[in-house]
């Protein structure tokens, strides 16, 4: 019985992780690098993300690209709750990881996205090069392909 279940598990892990479709969420400068990744010079469609979906019900990867402010945080939480399981989150850029260069002296920037939603991969730099976003996607797939993927449900 275990043999059958483990090979079925391999099959659906392979099919899910090779076709992660992101949501079009871009607030700030990192959004432009996300658009460059989907253009033809650094192509993310070769790695499975064929299209960027507009509605959260149809997407399964949320790349938080940009600064999160006080006024925008209830909306991000609502978007995350509207997505269907299984769903994954990449925090892209210094502003999403920890508040970035606005952490010390700004009154309206939230100090990191992980105060509101759970995060799988942190990607530093301001802004990260498009090659590093592809590297983050590959690391996410390796993390979830493991025997125990850190308590996450694949």
């Amino acid at each position, binding site marked *: 019985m275990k043999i059958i279940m483990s090979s079925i598990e391999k099959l659906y892990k392979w099919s899910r992780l090779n076709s992660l479709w992101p949501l079009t969420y871009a607030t*700030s400068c990192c959004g432009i690098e996300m658009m460059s990744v989907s253009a033809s010079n650094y192509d993310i469609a070769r790695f499975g993300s064929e299209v960027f979906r507009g509605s959260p019900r149809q997407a399964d990867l949320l790349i938080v690209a940009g600064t999160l402010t006080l006024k*925008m945080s209830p*909306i991000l939480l609502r978007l995350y709750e509207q997505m269907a399981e299984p769903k994954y989150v990449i925090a892209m850029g210094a502003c999403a990881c920890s508040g970035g260069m606005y952490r010390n002296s700004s009154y309206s920037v939230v100090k990191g996205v992980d105060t509101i939603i759970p995060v799988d991969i942190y990607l530093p730099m301001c802004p990260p090069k498009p090659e590093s976003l592809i590297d983050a996607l590959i690391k996410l797939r390796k993390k979830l392909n493991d025997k125990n993927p850190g308590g996450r449900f694949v």
Partner: protein
Amino acid sequence: MEKILTDRMRINIGPQHPSTHGVMRMIVDLDGETVENVETVIGYLHRGMEKMAETSTYIQYLPIVDRIDYLSGFFCSYAYVNGIELLMDIEISEKSKYIRTITMELNRMASHLLWLGCFMMDLGASSPFFYTFIEREKILDIFENLTGNRMMYNYYTFGGVKRDIDKENLYAIKKFSDEFVFALKDLEELINYNPIFISRTKNLGILEKECAYAYSITGVNLRASGIKKDLRKDKPYLIYENIEFNVPISENKDVQARYILRIKELKESNKIVQQCIDWLLTNLNNKNIITDVKPLTLKPEGIAISEVESSRGLMQCIIYADGTLNPYRIKWRTPSFYNVQIINEISKGYLLSDLIAIFGSLDIIMPEVDR
């Protein structure tokens, strides 16, 4: 046939939407499918840039200035650095003026190329997006060789620029600008005479002259209404007096006129870049790019107003300095803050899909609006 009674409907084009160019919320009153009233809600990207200046020194604020308009980082940087140079009476050398001009014009080209790709994607055409991004990546490669980063350059400083521009970079820019003419011709043949494009953009979003003056609109949106006003010709700064270029205007006030003017501006910027390259190639031995000013302990005093013609309009930086290490107040006058206010005026009576086309043609970017 008897008239069907309809009710007005209020829908929300929320902050997260592929075509709002950032985070902006529009609350639209619809009667069937015609637009009656548009209310815009902004403030979703307010980071407090103006308060951050009061707790940093003048040199610590310099990397933050690039992020006010991330698609034209050189323009914002120039506005801030020029203000301090006016207050302290600093003269910059000829070569650094040419380097500043050539980087600013290449930045204007990159910004217009990105606008073109996103505007066509709003209308539904997805091929021009890929063509323009190929050209844009070539410009960003040049900037990465010169300054070290693709988008936030941190290259200008008080008294000049930080690094010299060498022979390989100049030959790369020359090669790019020679081939750009043919790439632009390909794009024009693809888009200009397409009947769907013409029927979606002609006679839409008419902006009258009195409305433009009342809301203090500048840049391409003003020139598409027939008024010839460009800061590079009225009060020339840097070396724009020695360079020949035209400023195109148009008498139709619609969306198609703004599109045609931006394509013409791309060609004019290309001409300016070629003239600057010729001067720089003949002055390679000149190593004088920075005048020595002690930037860590600057203490200027007074009020400074410095302006620059950026890719979206007129940008000003107003500095109140009181003789200490930190500025007292810095205010940014950004062009997109005023372009947002005319959406309601020029889109009454059109359909909902026309509203997206009109909004895309104004070239609004949200970090400029919210700072």
